[in-house]
């Protein structure tokens, strides 16, 4: 099965696409980081985005999340063209990206990191703040319960009031995933979510992500650990040198000669 230059409409899509990326191009100086990438993500699925280092996975995620903008091509999410939308607008539509390197708010507590991500908080604007505690305290209480539930689920309750800078690398990754959950996402872009998370905790996170998928959250997961992709993802998109070289189910892609070559030569 040879699937180089796959078009969105060629994908096995049981449901209409939730996110459609069409012919995306982006260069940095002389480097063509992304060269004509197209794929579609159906709703309620986990799509693995894999490929050797430098394949352009993170750039594709940045282009989808609005952190970078494409030189050419388009991104449609939930029926809207977000190709050139700034990141905060993309996030407000329910598409939340996590980062490969830890991006915690260091001098905020763990709980504050989570609370910060809740959209539409009553007290989170200048005028809302000026109206005083009585205006937002009920709202805050509800969010606080949700945040503490999440921390319990990820075994971070003991650290709730510690500064995020005091967490270990793995704990920071979990914090970031928990934080993105507080943002009430319709879709998550997870950039190597398991990097630095060890053993049993990795299983917890994995199970949690799959449960989320079953609850209706769509995900793209860039990950080097292929066994995780094997277990979690419904299908995969394989990238190399800025291009999509294969798409499909993991077991099929494993047999693809081009994919094997890309991984061996990278």
């Amino acid at each position, binding site marked *: 099965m040879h699937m180089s230059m796959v078009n969105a409409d060629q994908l096995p899509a049981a449901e209409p696409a939730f996110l459609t990326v069409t012919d995306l191009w982006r260069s940095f100086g002389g480097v063509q980081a992304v060269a004509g990438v197209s794929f579609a993500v159906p709703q309620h699925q986990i799509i693995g985005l894999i490929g050797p280092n430098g394949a352009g996975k993170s750039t594709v995620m940045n282009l989808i999340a609005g952190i970078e903008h494409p030189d050419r091509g388009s991104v449609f999410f939930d029926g809207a063209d977000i190709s050139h939308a700034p990141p905060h607008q993309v996030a407000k539509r329910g598409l939340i990206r996590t980062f490969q390197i830890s991006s915690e708010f260091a001098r905020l507590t763990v709980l*504050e990191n989570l609370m910060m991500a809740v959209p539409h908080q009553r007290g989170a604007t200048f005028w809302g703040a000026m109206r005083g505690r009585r205006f937002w305290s009920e709202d805050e209480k509800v969010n606080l319960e949700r945040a503490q539930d999440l921390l319990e689920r990820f075994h971070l309750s003991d650290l709730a009031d510690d500064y995020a800078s005091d967490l270990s690398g793995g704990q920071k990754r979990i914090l970031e995933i928990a934080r993105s959950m507080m943002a009430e996402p319709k879709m998550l872009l997870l950039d190597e979510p398991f990097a630095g998370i060890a053993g049993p905790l990795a299983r917890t996170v994995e199970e949690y992500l799959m449960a989320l998928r079953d609850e209706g959250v769509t995900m793209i997961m860039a990950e080097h650990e292929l066994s995780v992709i094997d277990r979690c993802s419904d299908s995969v998109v394989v990238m190399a040198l800025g291009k999509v070289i294969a798409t499909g189910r993991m077991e099929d892609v494993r047999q693809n000669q081009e994919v094997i070559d890309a991984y061996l030569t990278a």
Partner: protein
Amino acid sequence: MSVAWQFYAITLLVYFGVNLMAGWAINFQYGVAGILNFGFIIFQSIGAYVASVTTLGASQPGGYQQYILGATLPWPLSIVAAGIAGGLLAIVVGSFALRPIGRAFQGIVLLIVAVIASDLVSTEFGWFDGTNGLAAIPKPLQGALGLGLVSYGWFYVGLTAVFCVVTYFVIRRCSTGPYGRKLRALRENARSASALGVNVRKETMVVFVVGGVIAAISGAVLVQFLGAWAPSTWMPSETFLYIAAIVVGGVDNMAGVALGVAILYTGILEGVQYFPSIGVGNLVGAVQWMAIGILVALFLWFRPQGMVPQRRRRLSTRVRTVRGSRANVVGVRERDDKNVLT
């Protein structure tokens, strides 16, 4: 207390109040939201100028001082006009200086703006009478109250205190709760904050304007006390005194900033006045800057969080397991938590 001492105390207290307002404003911008405003002094200055020209009356052709916008607004309106001017200047400057997210870039652009503004105001004699500056600025309500000089001075101390209380109230509300949390997130990692739905440019601009308005009002309060204002009173380097005050006192802590302002302005700047005038002519000025420079360097090296550090906001409402509760009982807590004043 003799009249001379009373005047001295009045001057110190008004200066302290004005510097406190400005210190809180720049701390709100830098300490809470992470905007490195090296051009802060121009916002204080525009407030002072606008409060002056809107009370001096129309500029007389051939008069001893020339200025624009001459008017005679009654007292609170001149302060309101100053605040509006500060806000508008913040919108104009912020529209280009805050554009890129890079903090160092913002700082440098704002410093350059301050230097250019200082040069322009110094050389354009038609605006605010250039290097001569403005003088004989009326004191608010002096005629209406009919107080003696000393009593009026104490009245002005009270007036300044009212402005300080209002400033405290506004900044306190803005830096606690969900809004303060959002601004601190922006300070810590603007990229992550925007990926979570925070409009970084808009939020930064709001903070910049709030800080600009408060700075301008502090300038207006000061100039109506002093009765004069000139480019020599707002050198771009003055901003670094405010930054020094919050570094020493405690970044992102309103009590810390008050302490820093007291130490730097009332302690050091006043303290060195009592130096004997020996050696070079401007010994006092040189010693002031040296003392402040050394103090800031020492703090950055040995206690970067300042005397009163940022308050850790403990939101957790649930009972802790062994680790947390034991720590509470034994009192094993980081040092900075004991120093909380706010």
